[in-house]
């Protein structure tokens, strides 16, 4: 097993916000993130009061409901040194939109801004903050990567996940055509306009297939859930995997 390329001189503290979807439905992603962070020598805590960032209501126009949930979130993470999130869209909700829920100049706004500044998407934290290039993971498979919309366009995170994928031993990384095109999920859009959502996804799935990959990697379980549903329905034997799971392919 190759050595981890990151050694911290000071102990860094991280609060892991796994997101509601990961917590309740896709726990292996949270466990993988935990495993990778611990390997880096980071001190990780999981606050069991955590629920959701407020994004579903926010994106549907229910701002009051979103604000209530955001306040709950800020209440938990107000004192955290770093908040790490294994999701591009939840990280965007916290970093780009959370402060806008509160009146300018208010104390709540200030708290929201502080929290948003200390929040990092997982791959960004590993790559930009910890300077990690290699977790010691080994995965001898052909993989491709899907840039989720908020991650790439709102947060501008494009190179970090790729560097981390390339650092995995044995991985054969192949870019798909239109890697940063939307997969069509779009939150409630996926059930409000299922035909459009799936039609957009069909193209994505085609590009994934054409890449020749056995695995499609992304940083959002929501996109992956949608892509996986389409792949399975079409009986295309490509598997989905969260980046955290890929990076955790090493023995403890």
């Amino acid at each position, binding site marked *: 097993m190759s050595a981890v390329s990151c050694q911290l001189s000071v102990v860094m503290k991280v609060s892991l916000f796994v997101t509601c979807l990961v917590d309740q439905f896709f726990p292996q992603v949270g466990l993988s993130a935990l495993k990778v962070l611990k390997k880096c020598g980071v001190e990780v805590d999981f606050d069991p009061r955590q629920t959701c960032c407020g994004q579903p*209501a926010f994106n549907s126009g229910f701002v009051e409901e979103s604000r209530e949930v955001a306040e709950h979130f800020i209440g938990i993470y107000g004192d955290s040194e770093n908040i790490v999130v294994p999701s591009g869209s939840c990280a965007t909700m916290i970093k780009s939109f959370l402060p806008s829920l509160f009146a300018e100049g208010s104390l709540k706004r200030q708290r929201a801004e502080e929290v948003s500044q200390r929040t990092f998407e997982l791959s960004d934290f590993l790559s930009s903050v910890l300077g990690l290039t290699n977790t010691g993971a080994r995965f001898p498979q052909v993989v491709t990567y899907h840039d989720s*919309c908020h991650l790439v366009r709102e947060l501008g995170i494009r190179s970090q996940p790729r560097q981390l994928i390339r650092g995995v031993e044995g991985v054969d990384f192949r870019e798909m055509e239109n890697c940063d095109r939307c997969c069509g999920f*779009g*939150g409630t859009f996926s*059930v*409000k*306009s299922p035909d*459009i959502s799936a039609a957009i996804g069909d193209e994505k799935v085609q590009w994934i297939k054409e890449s020749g990959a056995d695995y499609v990697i992304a940083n959002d379980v929501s996109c992956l859930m949608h892509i996986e549903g389409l792949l*399975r329905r079409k009986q295309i034997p490509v598997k989905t995997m969260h980046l955290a799971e890929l990076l955790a392919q090493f023995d403890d």
Partner: protein
Amino acid sequence: MIRSMRINRNVEAALANQQLQKNLRSTLGKSVRMRNESVAEVPNWDELSQYARDVKLHTLSRLDHYLEMLEQKVKAQGGKVIWAETGQEAVQFIVDLARQRKIGKLVKSKSMLSEEIHLNSMLERAQIESIETDLGEYVVQLAGETPSHLLAPALHKSREEIADLFVRELGMMPSGDVDEITATSRRVLREHFLTARMGVTGVNFGVAETGTIVIVENEGNARLSVSVPRIHVALMGIEKVIPRTRDLAVFLKLLIRSATGQKMTSYVSCLNGPRRSEELDGPEEFYLVLVDNGRSKILADRSLRQTLACIRCGACQNICPVYQRIGGHAYESTYQGPIGAILTPQLTSLAAAPEHAFASSLCGACQEVCPVKIEIPLVLLKLREQAQNEKKRRATHFSPERLVMGLWAQVMCSPALYVGFGRWIRWVWKILGENGSRGQLLAPLSSWKKHRDLPRLAARSFRELYRSSEE
């Protein structure tokens, strides 16, 4: 909500329309590529975009000032300026003018504003013949349809369909040849140019400091529309004013490269009022109709105001994954795609266009290509918020979505409820089994399952697994 979305009902037909799908794929794909290559040639593109955005937002913040400046300059050059609060007023002016001058036919160049105010059908009702002279617009007019793209109005039609149309309507010799189509339209339209006594055009930019009307095009039909007939009426949305000539270079570069990927279009006409005594061509009379039609009410909100910065390049339509799959007509509005999704409900009302803001995955590709950096996803979110607030205020009908969101917020604010709720869902999932038929009972589930398999959920939550690993 889910079933009542009109756009959704149009989607099935759009997706099944092989010709439309083929045209969308080839035309939009090419447009995106050409735009990207063209933009990459400009090293300071981002800087120019920001500059143009700043100019537009500044102008919108004192629109009255610049419009009055434009009015004065146009008048000083011998032109007349008409302020139309509504589309109806603008149409009425043109009808009255045509009647006064005993004009039975006018030629028109491409103008989305004229589509917005339904000029052609209103003129028809007033028994004034209006001839579209942009080839795409002419095709759409002959077919009795409406444009399906800002720049390529007949995007939805195949060459064969157009040929058939020309054979039927214009007596063209049957042949699918493109040259035959263009030769026929040239022959027919030439005759109209020579016999029409009024030309109606749109306006791309109105320069306040000089009173110059700028029209950008490739076919030369707008140039003919303003130089052959004796009267020129320019229809201009009030948001199209820019303060200075020196900024025009920036706007032309941004517009043209974003729209077609060209360095410059074949024609850019800069018009300063009617023909002067020493000049050889140009109209004898020039009228500038400044149309509000719902625009000034958009100015009120500072974050929504940027909607009016749009220069109608169509880049957001070309890149939009939704538009790319369903085309323009599914939107059932004059303005389609991302810009249409934010402009339509604001020009009319959220009640009149309740779905536009929701027919988007919020992917943000539109914002990335917008040459004036309109934050389309942010505006969509604002409009969604307004739509939900309005529904709540009216409270005319029970909203299951509001109920669900209210309960959801309660659950998410209480870790105990949240844990219980999560456990319940995982239990239900187990009962349903893989793609269990009982999933049909729940609308969102059956909606999901229409095209996708249901996700496989873990039996235990992260927190349970975390706790047992810590112990």
